[in-house]
């Protein structure tokens, strides 16, 4: 099992808020603004951790459980996410099921803590989040399972390594699976065609509205957890890409970080050039990702030999 290093975990712990900064700066560039500092998420999180809290009288300890367990689940999930050529800290057959499970755990408790406030806005956000997530989960799993169809790999490490070789062997399948994973990345991280992280109207929010009532250290956890989640899915997308995999350690780290930077910039570009989809159209986007994963899988079963 444990064959990798903790490098990825440390990198994520230190650098993940930077990704949010990069996305914001990219969007600012497209909008012709100067934009917030790259390290804004660090300042936010640090400041929030030092602040006091406002708690609603309606809430129970479940309200605490959302951010706390959310961040704990994200950091434990980091343990088995590879980064480019760097293997994950822990790797075992089926670890990506545990990854999906931990993400589901974080989401479940976040949804509950939103419902705990009794606010109709947060209930609305929770309902939409639960709906989209329930469609995204099978897509995520079927994209990864497609990769294990031919390579026979069963841990996230091996799956990503196999996927990156696939680009040379079976380009269409590789592109299809990678596209599905990228849409999952956008959906899970509440990015643009699905959810607008910058919206200012509670009615249109999904992810942001669920944490309206959190404040102080709890909201600090939420901000930091968002960054770590972005890092997790970003690393998966990067590790699947053959471009950002290099074997030797110091160089490998740099290449992988460059990959994450590229993914963040790409996210910023997507957010700048696309409008948000109507809520009713989002399921079709996710279903489209599912179609792409399944077609990839069918190609991998040997149809496209």
């Amino acid at each position, binding site marked *: *099992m444990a064959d990798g290093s903790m490098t990825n975990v440390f990198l994520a712990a230190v650098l993940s808020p930077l990704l949010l900064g990069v996305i914001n700066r990219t969007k600012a560039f497209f909008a012709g603004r100067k934009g917030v500092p790259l390290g804004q998420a660090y300042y936010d999180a640090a400041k929030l*951790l*030092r*602040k*006091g*809290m*406002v*708690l609603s*009288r309606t809430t*129970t300890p*479940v309200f605490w459980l959302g951010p*706390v367990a959310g*961040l*704990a*689940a994200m950091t*434990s999930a980091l*343990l088995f996410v590879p980064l480019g050529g760097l293997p994950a800290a*822990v790797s075992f*057959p089926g*670890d990506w*099921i*545990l990854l999906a*499970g*931990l993400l*589901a*755990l974080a*989401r479940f408790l976040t*949804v*509950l803590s939103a*419902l*705990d406030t*009794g*606010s*109709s*806005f*947060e*209930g*609305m956000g*929770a*309902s*939409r989040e*639960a*709906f989209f*997530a*329930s*469609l*995204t989960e*099978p*897509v995520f799993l079927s994209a990864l*399972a497609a990769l*294990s*169809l031919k390579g026979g790999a*069963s841990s996230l490490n091996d799956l990503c390594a196999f996927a990156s070789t696939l680009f040379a062997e079976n380009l269409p399948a590789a592109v299809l699976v990678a596209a599905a994973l990228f849409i999952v990345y956008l959906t899970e991280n509440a990015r643009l065609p699905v959810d607008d992280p910058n919206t200012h109207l*509670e009615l249109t929010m999904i992810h942001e509205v669920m944490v*309206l009532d959190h404040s*102080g*250290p709890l909201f600090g956890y939420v901000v930091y957890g968002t960054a770590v989640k972005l890092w997790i899915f970003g690393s998966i997308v990067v590790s699947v890409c053959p471009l950002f995999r290099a074997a030797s350690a110091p160089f490998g780290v740099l290449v992988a970080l460059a990959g994450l930077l590229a993914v963040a910039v790409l996210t910023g570009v997507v957010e700048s050039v696309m409008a948000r989809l109507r809520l009713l159209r989002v*399921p079709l986007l996710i279903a489209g990702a599912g179609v792409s994963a*399944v077609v990839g899988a069918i190609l991998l079963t*040997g149809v496209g030999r």
Partner: protein
Amino acid sequence: METLLAALLGILLSAVFGAISDRLPGRWRRLAPAGLVVSSLLGLLPVLKTLLQGEISAFRLPWGVPGGSFSLLLDPLSAFFLLFVLGLSSLAATYAVEYLEAGRTGFFWFFFGVLTVSMSMVTLARNAVLFLVAWEIMTLASFFLVTFEDEHLPVRRAGWFYLAASHVGTAFLLLLFVLLGRGTPVLDFDLFSFPAAETLEAGVLFALALVGFGVKAGFVPLHIWLPEAHPAAPSPVSALMSGVLIKMGIYGLVRVLGFWSVPSVAWGKILILVGLSSGILGVLFALAQHDLKRLLAYHSVENIGIIALGLGLGVLGKSLNQPLLAVWGMGGGLLHVANHAMFKSVLFLGAGAVARTTGTRDMDRLGGLLRKMPWTGGCFLVGAAAITGIPPLNGFVSEFLIFCGAFHGLKAGGLPALFSYSVVMGLGLIGGLAAACFAKAFGAVFLGEPRNGAEHAAREAGPLMRWPMGILAAVCVLVGLFPGVVVEALSPLLRQVSGLSPADFSPIKETMTGTLEVVSRIAFVFLAGVLGLWGFAAWRARRGAVAKSVTWDCGFAAPSPRMQYSASSFAQPFTDFFRGVLRTRFPPTVLRDLFPTESALHTKTPDVFHEELYRPLFGRLKETLLHGRRLQHGRLQLYVLYIVATLVALLVWSRG
């Protein structure tokens, strides 16, 4: 074995005592449940011994019934199911003492005891006649328990529904055993002769078993009795029925499949298809329900589907001679049987506690109960998290095993790979939908503000109701934290159902427990993270200022609890997206006048299979059979003529 029989006898005696206890003074009345619990716990000793050590013990008495023999056998498979029959019966009985409180409960205890004993006999019986007799007693006893509150019309209706469905199933089983035992005078299981698995004959046998046991288990589309009977029954009975009674169907299926050492590939595929449809449709219908217990009943259908997925993979593995697939699939399916027994009972018991104190099961009328009932709410939360299959709880462990089984299937290539792929996708979808459904159920009932005012009177359940829930929830957590230990303990069972030699089996088991050890370590990392983060936030909260305020109301000055997102609104995106399947009905609200005053919206999601398949089918059947009423005219002479005619015809047929 003798200890076990003594324990069963003890339960039976307690049951009989219960039947007459209504005439006794109050304190004596508790003797029946006490005897039941003590005997059940006594019976657990030999069961655990067999389960953990793989020791097999038999018991046999001659029996005068044609084709019958009183032949019992306790092997790991029986012991595994018995563990839950006896364990859950004792917990449900403890709970029921407080739940039922006053009134004539003797009737209840009698059938409760009989149900426990008959379920035990079902798992032990090795003779078809004995099995069917136990099966029928089990059905009847549970029918009387379902209709315990028979002063309500819906309860009586549900009871008949259940009875009719069960008997249709039994008819198939009767045919199955008659076909299996054609060659032997005594219908003992070990005397049966089996046609080769790929023949048409074996296929017919499998189909009979699938339908016969499937009715009890609740496979779609045979599930329609579950959402009727579970809400009607008293909660401890619902817990017992959902926890173990429907598992008797799974037991029967596994037992019958075990007759073939190499089953047919097609059976595995059929089980996977059945599992997918039960799992996905079950959870979809659950999402659309308003009644908490009805929702839980549909989740039983979903979980039975997950179990079928595991079994299907296991059967595929056995028939393709892929031991890895067989062990992981079967293991996941059976472990899910155990896990479902635990978390579903906790949920039903919790739902019962809520319904008992608030007087309603309608989720749109509940809310904010966690502050009034922290114990019940906490246990319900553990059960809800476990059933959605998220770590670090037991539901995740069994789904993880099934997923891993599916990976082994993916490598097999060809159609098995396609089926394994659909298992992965289906389980993902089921997991996501179940999470949404239980976020809705827990959120609507326990979180937020009370919606209706009925909760002001809500009170936490007493100790006899709290402890069973607490124990079950604790077991859910423990199994989730130490899955490796559990699989190690179940290894005699897994070896039996996978049919492998010890030499083949042990390396597979080693990798299994090894993987689960890692999962368990990650779970502890997670828990440490939760503790650390919570501690930090609490420390900050103590040092810094914590202001208590109202929930953010977006500037609206007078928020009221009725403005909360309700359970129905939470489920609306789902019911809308899946409307093609669910057919949720929105009776149109008519607005009159320029300034309409009040209006209301009611949605209803009746079971599609009930509405579109069974109702028309049985309607036709009734029309056809009505012609037969001409034979039923009330004239005694003609009835005697029927008898004579039949007798003569039989004589001619047998001699001629």
